[in-house]
């Protein structure tokens, strides 16, 4: 048996046309060579990332890079199959890369332990495709806007297809984004609306649910009693303290149901996760990567949802590119505001509005700076604006540029008085 025999099945689809492959496609050596030369980046070495690395290695990719800043925790072991009990505490990217390299002969996997924000455009420019397996919206938005920003219409190589996967419990989604050409993460941001926060007055004065008691212990009691200790949700003593404080409060209000598990879930905002859902979504993304890298079949245009609670349900559709997308569109996004709200109140709503989700915004119009968080002098200078009503700062229909330290770009909103 020759060395090529390892890839017997894969090479068959790369060496033979199918009924649905592009009629202009030339199968064979060239296709295989271009696959092997495609440098591909995997963002995240967690539940999806472990699967993605395995799948890419077994799809004939030879030069894979992976970024992850996290270390391995015991609660990862129920799905992150490249990690063992003895790996707890080690960096995910390194352990995952070494494991897959060891198992699949001939593949090179280069880990980077750190944040995606540590890398610049030159770094991202070297890849042909980027595959994302992240649990954070913020990181997704960052890589999305970075890749959109890198597109230079004169240079087709600057367009890096972004394949994104996400899961929660039995549900998940996979999508293919051609930055600046098709619907991007930011276009669909409202599909990832944050859970509505419990109003502070409920937490502070009229708790009704066990979760309200936990939020009280976390947001109020800790500040009150232990403000000198910085809270660490991975510290079992800290969680235990929150649990006991929540339990005491629940007792005062006759509210049953506070448990340790619930306390952890609320404080760490835990999302249920299982191996099987990750397997489905990760393989959906890597199957698209193989199709994009080789053209052996048409790729997904552009969104697939999966739900497994009741039978097997998938929905495949084409999400639309939005002309007022702050990242890939060229129009300011319209948002309706209450002209009598203060700037401070408006800033607060920017954190929760599904179409904005900006936690630390600074704002300016073309003429003036409304509020600037940094440097401190400017913050002090613009702070008095916070108490002013919007109608005294802007006119209806005026455009406001919003920047946020989490993102590299400005978001443009057109404020419409409601």
């Amino acid at each position: 048996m020759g060395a090529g025999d390892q890839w017997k099945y894969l090479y068959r689809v790369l060496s033979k046309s199918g009924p649905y492959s592009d009629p202009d496609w030339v199968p064979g050596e060239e296709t295989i060579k271009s696959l092997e030369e495609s440098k591909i980046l995997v963002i995240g070495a967690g539940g999806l990332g472990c699967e993605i690395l395995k799948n890419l290695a077994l799809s004939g990719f030879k030069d894979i890079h992976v970024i992850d800043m996290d270390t391995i925790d015991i609660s990862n072991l129920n799905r992150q199959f490249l990690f063992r009990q003895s790996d707890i505490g080690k960096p995910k990217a390194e352990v995952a890369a070494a494991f897959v390299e060891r198992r699949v002969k001939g593949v090179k996997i280069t880990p980077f332990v750190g944040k995606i924000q540590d890398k610049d455009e030159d770094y991202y420019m070297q890849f042909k495709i980027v595959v994302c397996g992240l649990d954070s919206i913020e990181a997704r938005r960052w890589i999305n806007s970075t890749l959109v920003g890198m597109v230079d219409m004169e240079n087709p190589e600057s367009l890096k297809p972004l394949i994104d996967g996400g899961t929660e419990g039995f549900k998940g989604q996979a999508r293919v984004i051609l930055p600046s050409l098709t619907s991007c993460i930011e276009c669909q941001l409202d599909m990832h609306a944050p859970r509505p926060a419990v109003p502070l007055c409920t937490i502070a004065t009229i708790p009704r649910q066990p979760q309200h008691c936990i939020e009280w212990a976390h947001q109020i009691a800790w500040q009150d009693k232990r403000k000198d200790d910085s809270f660490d949700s991975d510290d079992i003593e800290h969680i235990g303290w929150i649990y006991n404080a929540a339990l005491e409060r629940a007792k005062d209000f006759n509210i049953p149901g506070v448990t340790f598990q619930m306390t952890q879930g609320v404080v760490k905002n835990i999302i249920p996760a299982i191996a099987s859902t990750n397997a489905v979504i990760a393989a959906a993304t890597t199957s698209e990567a193989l199709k994009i890298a080789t053209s052996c079949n048409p790729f997904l245009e552009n969104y697939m949802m999966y739900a497994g609670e009741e039978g097997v349900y998938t929905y495949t559709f084409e999400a639309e590119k939005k002309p007022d997308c702050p990242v890939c569109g060229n129009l300011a996004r319209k948002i309706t505001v209450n002209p009598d709200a203060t700037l401070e109140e408006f800033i607060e709503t920017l954190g929760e509005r599904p179409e904005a989700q900006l936690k630390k915004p600074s704002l300016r119009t073309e003429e003036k700076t409304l509020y600037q968080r940094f440097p401190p002098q400017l913050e002090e200078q613009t702070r008095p604006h916070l108490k002013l009503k919007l109608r005294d700062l802007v006119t209806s229909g005026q455009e406001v540029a919003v920047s946020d330290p989490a993102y590299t770009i400005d978001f443009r909103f057109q404020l419409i008085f409601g």
Partner: protein
Amino acid sequence: MASDFPHALAGPSSKERKYDRQLRLWAASGQQALEESRVLLVNSDGPWGNKSTGVSGVVGVETLKNLVLPGIGGFTIVDPAVVTEPDLGVNFFLENESLGKSRAEETCRLLTELNPDVEGNFQAKPIAEVIQEDPGFLARHKLVLVSGPIKQSSLRTLCEGAKTLGIPVLYTRSVGFYSTFSLQLPAVFPIVETHPDPESTQDLRLLSPWPELAAAAGGISNLDSFDDHQHGHVPYVLLLLHYLEKWRESHDGNAPSNYKEKTAFRDFVRSSARANIPQGGEENYDEAVAAVLKALNPFSLRSSTREIFQMEECKQLTADSADFWVIASAVREFYETHQVLPLPGSLPDMKAQSADYVSLQNIYKSKARKDIAEVTETIRRIESQLGRTFGAPDKDIELFCKNASHIQVIRGRDIPQVDGDAHTKKRLRVELDNDESLIPVHLAFQVLDIVVTGIQEGKYPEDSLDDEAIWSVEIDRILAGIASDAPIDDEVRTRLLEAAQELRRTEGGELHNISSLTGGLVAQEALKVLTRQYVPLDNTCIFNGIRSSSAMYKL
């Protein structure tokens, strides 16, 4: 209430920490069911001629990975194949050193590494031999996974054996960019914890409040005299009950029943909110307004529950009936008496003072407890009439009552075959006329089964996997069998030929991505079957990796 307020700091055990992210989906009861399960994987059934080792079995191994990680009790891999080079390009649970060794042993070894809680076993011979040597073998498993294509006679024997023992079977095939799998459940498969969307299970009984709830609403009859703070904190459930009473007074005692009346009632509630208050509006009234259209529907039994009540098993209890049917029968009696199901007893969060909310919550909870007590009494009466010695456990009765509105019973069907029963043939025939249907993919797989069987039985030469002429003959034979009444039009035949062409492209070989994805889907179904939570597939799923779409069919 002591148990509601544990005092000691009860940190989680290391097992609870390891499984934390999944316990949030199926709880300790689901986990226990998993840990008590042993899964059998029949991952190949011998070579397809001299040049091919047969099924590479990636879906099977990937499925097991997704079951070993969450902690099933154990598994057995039956696979007579020896590891060859091409295996290393598709199967992650083999390594260079595995070459030439038993694939059953090597995949078992590398899968067991994933979770020390799971016991792995293997048999490096064909399943027929294993069963012949050890007739009790099948019965020691809770689920059978079969990786196809497999000789039809072997599949039939396995499926029949499992059916006799009441063991579910998942039959999978993955070739190139396509995959399909079918689930054979026991003849009767009840699920109590279906985990419906909490929104759809809300049952507030606003149109027919029981006396305690009506009395609570009566407590706010002097609503107008409340100060602004009190007024803005009346739970919306009580607000709606209060305004319903007022509405009835001016509508001959009738509640709003159609859309027009409900919107009029909604306007009436909205207009009763206090406007000239510092906060600008009242959140509890907003909640009440938002709830009107959904919460003012009279109780209605879902058709799936009605069907369960009408099943023979529910109507004809015997001393040997499963507890499920005894409980179902008692709940049916409850429904016949009260025209409603036992109250689930949960109350959504709503704007209210803590104490008011808790006391309203207690009204719902105690009604739920009372309903459970009534059902339990009926059950004990039935049990003594039937002369049953062991009573249904209280916790099962409680679980049933809480989930009563969404309980399901699936009538298991055999793994579908083209020469199957009239129902399968009819479904296939109907689906063939739908040009979006994935049924052509399924039929192409059926043809693959036939070709593989032909090779294994020496009817076809071993290079038939990409022989257009042989496939074409078998496709026509299948179509003739399905559509004996009317001729198949050319478009349908073309769709089937195209699907077959895509399968022939890899000559029966698997692509890792598609098999891994399929292993995820299959494991998901296995988890649902083993935990008896959520709702499993009924009964066939087809995945199209070219279009990234899937479909379910009851074949």
